[in-house]
């Protein structure tokens, strides 16, 4: 006899609201007149995100914290709510960047009509008519909904569904750049193909784990694994599921899409995606590894340790040789994945442990990367954005504020004190060292030194080098983008100087529950 599971709508409504807003966006796209679509979509998305954020905060502060719903498929716990809130915050910034129309003569950064092939007359017509891709907002909302689910998935199937819901819109958004469309489409294709493979591998691993435990629920898998010990079925399953998640986070050796996609995607998409995807993926990864596979720590820790070491070293060293700022930030994102994986090697404790360290690092990194890419979208030449680093030379003279803000984000990514990145780095290193992973921490310190080199080189280029003749200019953005940049910078500095409240919040939020 089939019984429908009880669902606690009181705790899940923020997620449902975001997904509902996405559906409403599709309806708007179908029925609203073209002229009204942009404003409708933007306000709908913003209102939905704000309401969802308020809801998440309320749920997180409420009494329903620590329960699971939908037969254990969704878990309402502290870390889950925190990462959900973080995804929503970053996405609010993302919407603001998506809505930027001032930089490019009144049109957004997205292609006028995705179906028009690059270089054809159809494309010309689309751009002459000033067409806009307002579908990006519902697409983004679907992805946000998927990310929120990903953060709180308590069973394997939910995890897979959420992964797909968040991934598919990202593939599409990547291919929608208004300029350099071929590059963008190539990136989207690459992302899609590799992403589809990794989802397949993830699904296979999921099936094996189910075969081992006879249950989809992460908590039950954890119990079975603790009783029965390791079996080849489980180990293979862990390995294959890890591949799927490591792909999403951009860890070596599944990182190769990162620089291409970061470079090819429209910059607002890159800004939002690089922050939000990483938050969601790491939240899910923490939960999966601690709740379901926690008992197998001795097995997966060395493997993840090796991946972390390779990721940090490769990301940092490849970033040095990049000449394009978006690619450089792409490789830097790879390096940051390595640092986050270092934090994953620690253990969950009641006080300051792995969960807290990784989530704080994600907060710091999220704001820094959102702000950094937002600034990248401002630096332009006659043919759109200027990614080439040598044309950034001397930017500090002409536009001291923009360059200084960019420097703040870079210094935070480099992990200098008085920025959020420092506390983040300190946290993940401390978590790993607390679990006795000192070789990995030693490598992490080494790669931090390498990483500092390329961050500082950009600062040097902006401030100490004389401008060339074709130096890039900084376009004046609309208020939305300025606010995103300013708030990200303030958050980056504040979290570095007074991280106490956020740290306490994380400690109070406790660990994952089954």
């Amino acid at each position, binding site marked *: 006899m089939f019984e429908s599971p009880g669902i606690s709508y009181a705790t899940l409504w923020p997620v449902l609201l975001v997904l509902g807003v996405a559906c409403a966006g599709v309806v708007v796209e179908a029925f609203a007149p073209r002229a009204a679509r942009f404003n409708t979509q933007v306000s709908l998305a913003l209102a939905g995100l704000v309401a969802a954020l308020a809801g998440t905060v309320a749920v997180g502060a409420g009494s329903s914290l620590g329960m699971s719903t939908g037969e254990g498929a969704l878990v309402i716990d502290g870390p889950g709510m925190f990462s959900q809130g973080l995804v929503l915050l970053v996405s609010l910034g993302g919407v603001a960047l998506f809505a930027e129309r001032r930089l490019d003569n009144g049109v957004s950064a997205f292609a006028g009509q995705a179906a028009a092939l690059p270089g054809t007359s159809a494309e010309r017509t689309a751009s002459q008519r000033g067409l806009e891709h307002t579908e990006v907002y519902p697409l983004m909302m679907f992805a946000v909904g998927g990310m929120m689910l990903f953060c709180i998935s308590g069973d394997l199937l939910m995890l897979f569904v959420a992964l797909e819901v968040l991934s598919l819109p990202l593939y599409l958004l990547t291919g929608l750049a208004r300029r350099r469309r071929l590059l963008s489409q190539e990136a989207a294709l690459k992302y899609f193909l590799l992403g589809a493979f990794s989802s397949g591998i993830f699904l296979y691993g999921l099936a094996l784990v189910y075969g081992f435990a006879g249950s989809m629920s992460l908590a039950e898998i954890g119990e079975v694994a603790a009783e029965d010990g390791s079996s080849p079925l489980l180990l293979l399953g862990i390995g294959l599921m890890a591949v799927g998640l490591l792909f999403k986070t951009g860890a070596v050796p599944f990182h190769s899409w990162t620089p291409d996609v970061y470079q090819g995607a429209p910059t607002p998409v890159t800004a939002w995606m690089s922050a939000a995807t990483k938050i969601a993926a790491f939240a899910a990864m923490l939960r999966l590894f601690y709740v379901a596979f926690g008992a197998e720590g001795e097995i997966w820790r060395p493997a993840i340790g090796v991946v972390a070491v390779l990721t940090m070293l490769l990301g940092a060293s490849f970033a040095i040789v990049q000449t394009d700022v978006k690619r450089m930030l792409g490789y830097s994102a790879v390096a940051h994945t390595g640092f986050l994986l270092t934090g994953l090697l620690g253990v969950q404790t009641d006080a300051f442990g792995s969960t807290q360290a990784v989530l704080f690092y994600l907060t710091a990194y999220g704001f820094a990367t959102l702000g950094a890419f937002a600034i990248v979208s401002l630096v332009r030449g006659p043919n759109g954005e200027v990614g080439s680093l040598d044309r950034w030379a001397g930017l500090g003279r002409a536009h001291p504020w923009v360059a200084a803000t960019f420097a703040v984000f870079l210094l935070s990514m480099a992990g200098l004190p008085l920025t959020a990145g420092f506390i983040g*780095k*300190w946290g993940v290193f*401390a978590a790993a060292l*607390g679990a006795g992973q000192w070789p990995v921490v030693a490598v992490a310190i080494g790669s931090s030194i390498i990483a*500092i080199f390329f961050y*500082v080189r950009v600062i*040097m280029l902006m401030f100490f080098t004389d401008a060339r003749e074709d130096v890039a200019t900084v376009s004046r953005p609309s208020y939305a983008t300025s606010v995103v940049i300013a708030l990200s910078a303030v958050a980056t500095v504040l979290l570095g100087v007074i991280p106490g409240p956020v740290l306490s919040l994380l400690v109070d939020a406790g660990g994952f529950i089954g």
Partner: protein
Amino acid sequence: MLTTLVLIPFVGALVTAVMPARPKLWAFGFAIATLIAGVVTMFTAPDTDLVWMEPLGVHWALEMDGFGKLMVLLTVVLVPLVMVAAVKDHDKRWYAWALALEAFALLTFLAADLFVFYIAFEATLIPAYFMIGQHGGPQRAKAALKFLMFQLGGGLVLLGALIGFFVVSSEAGAPSYLISDLAQLDIGTTAERWIFVAMFIAFAVKAPLFPVHTWLADTTEQATTPTSVLLVCVLDKIGTFGMIRLCLGLVPEASAWATPVVVVLALISIVYGAVLAIGQDDLLRLIGLTSLSHFGLITLGIFAATREGLVGAILYMVNHGVATAAMFLIAGFLIARKGTASISSMRGLEKATPVLAGTFLVAGLATAGLPGLSQFVSEIMVLISAFDYHWLVGVIAVTAIVLAAIYVLWAYQRIFTGPAQLSRGPVRDLDRREVGVLVPLLVALLFFGFVPGPLISAAQPVVAPLVDVIQAGE
């Protein structure tokens, strides 16, 4: 109250950066205010201890002991003097960074919490980096990068030690970063040695000590002399300060364990720095390399771990700061006149610029440790402790004095004596502003040469417990 001392220059930096009119005057005003605040806090300043980041056990804890007082005094006196010296060819960005540097340097000297110390330790690099990179010679960007990479590398290694302390102190109960709490920890020999190595590498880069000194000569050559004064006379002192306060204070047994290696490195620095200095043609590189030699002596004094050695090292830090500041500033004035730092292109300046020549000689002889000038006392104390440690170490260290006499006198001879050069125009002597900058420094050199008592009595109480702990450890 101690917080105010840090805040004044910090606020000053912000004000200077945004002030449209007369920013340099504002900066100077804030530097003077810091000087006054520094002197006042020396007499009436309660310790500060507030909770800062609770989950990490970090406190905003400041205190000023005798050692801290000396270093604070050195800092607050040098900054306004340097600002006067820099007035002609530095813009407001430099002044803002200089105040920021002062704020963070003061914070390191006052920190009673290791985390606070570390944050300030690293934060000093940002202003220093911009000060080197924005003003100076043609290769300044490269020098700034080299400086930063070395320093941040050392800093990240120190971060390893910091995290090690966190792990140990969490295991012992609630985490705390207060230096007084950390000193009580039972760390275990292996961990203690690792922590020592990490801390020592960081401080050796900062100090600088052979073989991680290579950034020093490049930096002093490319940076302007006011920048160099702040770097060598204030910032580098954080390295030796850290060795005393953190290496000896927190991991004394590991310090005793490592002493033989450190002594050898210090001896190499002493001789190697001096020999390189003798061969230098670039006056700024020369002064930079003499500092390598002197920091070797300071380190030797610290690790020889006798009461005289430690007191001597602390005194040496102050005196070296004053003497080298004078040397750098005089060299800067000279270079401003000649347009080059190359010693071989100067000759016979004595007649045209007697005041310049005289101050150069006094400062130079102070550097070389002439009796009656301040560095003498500290040098003797360090050398006595070196002989105590081992006679051979003492013998090698003494060569420093001979070599110092060579590089100072030979440089003087090449620059100032001999027939006057047929130059395009007369070289002016020091003007009133420049004399005004140098007089306080030279007075300090003479005064502490004859009356070292106040310095010694300030350093004594800090040293006594350290020496007891170390000798108990042995």
